[in-house]
């Protein structure tokens, strides 16, 4: 039968340790005399309490303080090394960031220098502009419309608009028809610099011819 006397049961360890006052001790003893379940519980507790713990020996106890201090020193050493490694990493990272930033600036400057003549289409189409020069300079340097940024595209569109406005209605129709039914601006956006130049020259020729 299971005993439900919690008050007695929580006192059993103290009873075993002889930590109860006289009244409590008598109360527990009286209960134990009548309750098999609590006697079994007391035996269980006694068995757990008597569970042996090995003694590692005097040398183990005597050297523990030294081992602790040695371990603390080693930890500190490792921590310092880690901190230094972290500092070195941070410095390395800083150097890489600086190098990357420098490379970025150089690339940007190079890009502006290379693109400068094409950024303003009207300048590119100035009388002194020689298509042959560009071809000779670098064929791979041709810029596709899709590579231009918003400002550059606006400039191209403005130029194209002005050029188209100057065309006669027939020519405009012919141009549009030659490009199918597609929007002229879409077509223009597909042209690279060389093709734009050819188109520009053609328009100029048409203008000269009246």
């Amino acid at each position: 039968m299971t005993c439900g006397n919690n008050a007695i049961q929580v006192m059993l360890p103290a009873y075993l340790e002889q930590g109860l006052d006289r009244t409590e001790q008598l109360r527990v003893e009286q209960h134990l005399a009548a309750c098999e379940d609590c006697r079994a519980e007391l035996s269980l507790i006694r068995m757990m309490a008597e569970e042996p713990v090995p003694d590692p020996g005097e040398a183990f106890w005597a050297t523990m303080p030294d081992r602790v201090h040695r371990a603390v020193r080693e930890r500190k050493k490792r921590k310092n090394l880690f901190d230094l490694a972290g500092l070195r990493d941070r410095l390395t990272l800083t150097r890489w960031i600086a190098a990357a930033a420098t490379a970025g600036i150089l690339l940007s400057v190079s890009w502006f220098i290379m693109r400068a003549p094409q950024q303003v289409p009207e300048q590119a189409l100035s009388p002194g502009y020689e298509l042959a020069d560009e071809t000779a300079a670098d064929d791979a340097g041709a810029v596709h419309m899709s590579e231009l940024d918003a400002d550059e595209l606006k400039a191209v569109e403005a130029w194209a608009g002005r050029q188209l406005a100057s065309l006669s209605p027939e020519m405009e129709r012919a141009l549009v028809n030659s490009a199918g039914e597609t929007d002229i601006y879409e077509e223009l956006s597909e042209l690279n610099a060389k093709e734009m130049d050819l188109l520009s020259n053609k328009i100029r020729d048409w203008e000269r011819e009246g």
Partner: protein
Amino acid sequence: MDEDLDLINRTEAGEREAFDDLVRKYQKPLYSLLYRMVSSHDDASDLLQKTFIKAFTGLRSFERRASFKTWLYQIAINLAKNVYRDRARVEYVRIDDVIIRKNPRTLETLIHNESRQLLRRALGSLPEKQRLTLLLRVQEEKKFEEIADIMECTVGTSKANYHHAVQKLKAMLGEKEKIQEPGAANQENHDDVRE
């Protein structure tokens, strides 16, 4: 307590020997607790050292109004929990598997039949808080008030954990008696034959 505070103050002032005294004072009870938690000298020894390292390096975080001993026990228990959990996963035994092969008539007989291994396994299957509470109360002879401080719970909770732990153990071990009753024994034998 005053002695501990004095040693702590001296340790913080850079007196290494003061901390050595604290180590000497608490190493045995802590080792006993840790060994009972992890059941291995190597692990208990390693955890003991780690407990003192953590106490030494974290001494500034120790609140002087609390008991240094309780603080040390908290550190030790927290460190041991991981090892204990790993072990519990490995050694976890279902209650049904804790079968007594002998034929004890009572729980008392069972205990006196030196089935310590069985008891350890049953203890291992208890929920962590209940097992720790039982260990602290019965094996470390801590009062419920101290257990409450160490486990950071109320005295009522520590008593409840203790009570549940003991009841579960009794149920686990008591079940075996029922299994071994004549009818049950026959059934078991019958199962054996079938196998």
